[in-house]
């Protein structure tokens, strides 16, 4: 990239500068490192990016390898979607929160379900005791989903649903709600998380073992290609991997490795790469290390595009695009001095935007304590609006490109990810690595290292290990009381009495036959959902056929 004589002169000047620099005040910290623990140099210059072919490595937005962004006009043409993840208590409470957020300028919905719903238990299951409506909204059947989306035009808004093991059931319910509203399924837009691999690796909300879980996913991909073509069938998620303690490189590598696995599974199921790949999307964390995060998103786009084109032979450009949602890092928030979380979230959100995200969730300052209050949610949304309209960062595309440091970090993360891909392959692939606990151990090691750095004060967290104040937490937090569970049990009981129970039995029996054979499970699940079979009934039908996942022991 640079000519020899320039590089020689540069080297000379740098040497002089280094010598001079030593005469000035020296490091106040023993190490300078990223959030991921990687050493950072005091200065980056042209030599840091020497030998790169600009067109090949960086190029133009909307063009291969998409380092600078997936769209030609980026935020001028498509401002990122402000999509606040939200859901709590009963369906009605959640519906009210959605109307509030939409009134305040939110542009997409994102449903948070409670733990029993995420795990496939109805509210009246004994394992649901104490957890109904706590971490999200409770959903037992189509009846609840009808209330959640009451008064919301599903033909006009896009909805993301954070649901994994029972994802087929919740998508079926969403399609069911649309049918009742008279909206054709091909008009629906939105995203299912539906990423079971990262459940085994990090978030741990699984039901069935990998093989039948992947069948449910590939069945859904086939169903959506025919009936819900604008739906993003999987949101391949690094978010939870990062929250569990991974470094930026691990988040990048394990997430993309999961993505490759889904591609390979769908190919093995006989699907054409260009039919499903355009509907794959991603979900990344925005952690605190500003530059490292921006570089991570840029590297992710480049790696995905290369693999999709060169290894999986996708022909459509749409198949090469890594489109992603970003959420600011929940694990970076502190219970101490919680108002400080506003600033943390703002910086993190800024890195997501500078990294070219397609949609964004900003955490609320009180989320380490409980579900967020209305005031905190509003401030989180306002943070995005300030970034979009006031800071000017969205005016031009990928404004940090060409920065010696950013390009160096982008390349570095890419090569660290490549090293992990090689190691994962050497160990027999992602599924084998999960089975052996390799990925889980790598993440746990990073989490422990990070905690030790904080305790040794190699890393300062404001309000936690420095600038500590005696304080009483005064932010009003939202508490979900037990009346939610009581109300839900009454509603569930009533619904079961009023539906046609013969039809429920029949459709569940058909689902069991389909699961034992090789029919499309998604179609059979939709039939169950339409007649108000509950989520728990559907999962209880599949569990004995598919089996239950057991985590490999860690210690």
């Amino acid at each position, binding site marked *: 990239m640079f000519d020899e004589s320039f590089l020689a002169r540069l080297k000379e000047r740098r040497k002089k500068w280094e010598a001079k620099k030593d005469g000035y005040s020296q490091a106040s910290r023993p190490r300078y490192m990223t959030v991921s623990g990687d050493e950072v140099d005091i200065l980056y210059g042209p030599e840091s990016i020497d030998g790169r072919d600009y067109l090949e490595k960086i190029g133009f937005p909307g063009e291969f390898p998409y380092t600078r962004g997936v769209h030609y006009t980026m935020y001028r043409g498509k401002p990122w979607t402000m999509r606040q993840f939200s859901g709590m208590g009963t369906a009605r409470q959640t519906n009210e929160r959605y109307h509030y957020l939409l009134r305040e300028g939110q542009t997409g919905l994102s449903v948070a379900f409670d733990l029993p719903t995420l795990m496939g238990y109805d509210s009246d299951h004994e394992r649901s005791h104490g*957890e109904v409506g706590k971490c999200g909204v409770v959903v037992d059947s189509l009846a609840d989903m009808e209330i959640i989306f009451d008064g919301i035009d599903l033909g006009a808004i896009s909805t993301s649903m954070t649901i994994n093991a029972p994802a087929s059931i919740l998508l079926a319910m969403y399609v069911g709600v649309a049918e009742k509203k008279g909206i054709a399924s091909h008009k629906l837009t939105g995203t299912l998380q539906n990423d079971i691999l990262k459940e085994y690796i990090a978030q741990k909300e699984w039901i069935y073992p990998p093989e039948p879980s992947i069948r449910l996913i590939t069945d859904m991909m086939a169903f959506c290609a025919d009936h819900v073509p604008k739906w993003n069938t999987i949101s391949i998620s690094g978010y939870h991997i990062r*929250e569990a303690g991974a470094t930026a490189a691990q988040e990048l590598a394990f997430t993309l490795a999961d993505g490759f696995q889904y591609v390979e599974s769908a190919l093995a199921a006989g699907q054409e790469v260009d039919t499903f790949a355009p509907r794959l999307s991603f979900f990344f964390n925005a952690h605190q290390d500003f530059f490292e995060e921006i570089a991570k998103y840029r590297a992710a786009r480049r790696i995905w595009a290369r693999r999709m084109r060169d290894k999986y032979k996708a022909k459509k450009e749409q198949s090469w695009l890594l489109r992603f949602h970003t959420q600011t890092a929940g694990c970076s928030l502190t*219970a101490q001095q919680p108002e400080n979380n506003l600033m943390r979230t703002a910086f993190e959100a800024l890195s997501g935007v500078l990294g070219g995200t397609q949609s964004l969730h900003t955490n609320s300052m009180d989320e380490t304590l409980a579900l967020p209050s209305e005031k905190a949610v509003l401030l989180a949304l306002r943070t995005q609006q300030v970034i979009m309209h006031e800071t000017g960062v969205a005016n031009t595309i990928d404004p940090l490109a060409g920065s010696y440091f950013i390009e160096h970090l982008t390349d570095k993360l890419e090569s660290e990810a490549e090293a992990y891909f090689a190691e994962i392959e050497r160990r027999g692939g992602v599924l084998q690595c999960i089975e052996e606990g390799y990925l889980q151990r790598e993440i746990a090691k990073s989490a*422990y290292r990070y*905690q030790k750095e904080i305790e040794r004060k190699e890393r300062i967290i404001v309000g936690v290990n420095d600038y500590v104040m005696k304080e009483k937490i005064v932010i009003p937090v939202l508490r979900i009381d037990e009346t939610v569970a009581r109300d839900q049990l009454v509603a569930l009981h009533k619904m079961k009495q009023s539906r046609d129970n013969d039809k429920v039995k029949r459709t569940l029996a058909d689902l069991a036959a389909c699961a034992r054979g090789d029919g499309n499970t998604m179609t059979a699940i939709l039939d169950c959902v339409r007649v108000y079979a509950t989520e728990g009934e559907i999962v209880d039908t599949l569990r004995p056929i598919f089996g239950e996942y057991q985590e490999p022991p860690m210690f």
Partner: protein
Amino acid sequence: MTEKIRVLLAKPGLDGHDRGIKVIAAALRDAGMEVIYTGLRQTPEQIVTAAIQEDVDAVGVSILSGAHMTLFPAIFNLLRERGGGDKLLFGGGIIPDEDIAALGKMGVARLFTPGATTTEIIEWLTRAAPAAKKNDKLL
């Protein structure tokens, strides 16, 4: 040489956030304790059975889902019923002050909230576990 402190670490309920408990497991082990980690989604029944079978000195429970007022009392009462009332029950999670007070009154030995360091937890266990054992022998 003093006997090693034996600790059972457990994660009850449906919540799968196990970053914290795995960090604690690694730290206690590095501090020379014997650690048994039950894995995820253990019922109070399973946790108490394991605690008694493994004859541990302390049972540490991590709950981040908001279900602490259901799960801690369930584990505490079962421990007492099964003759494990001498074992220290402690825990960690996002637990409001008033709930900490209520659980403390009931007999939960100690609850750690966000910001607690592994050093604090190790120091507390090193002090409290032998003391609990001694009391038990005196009884």
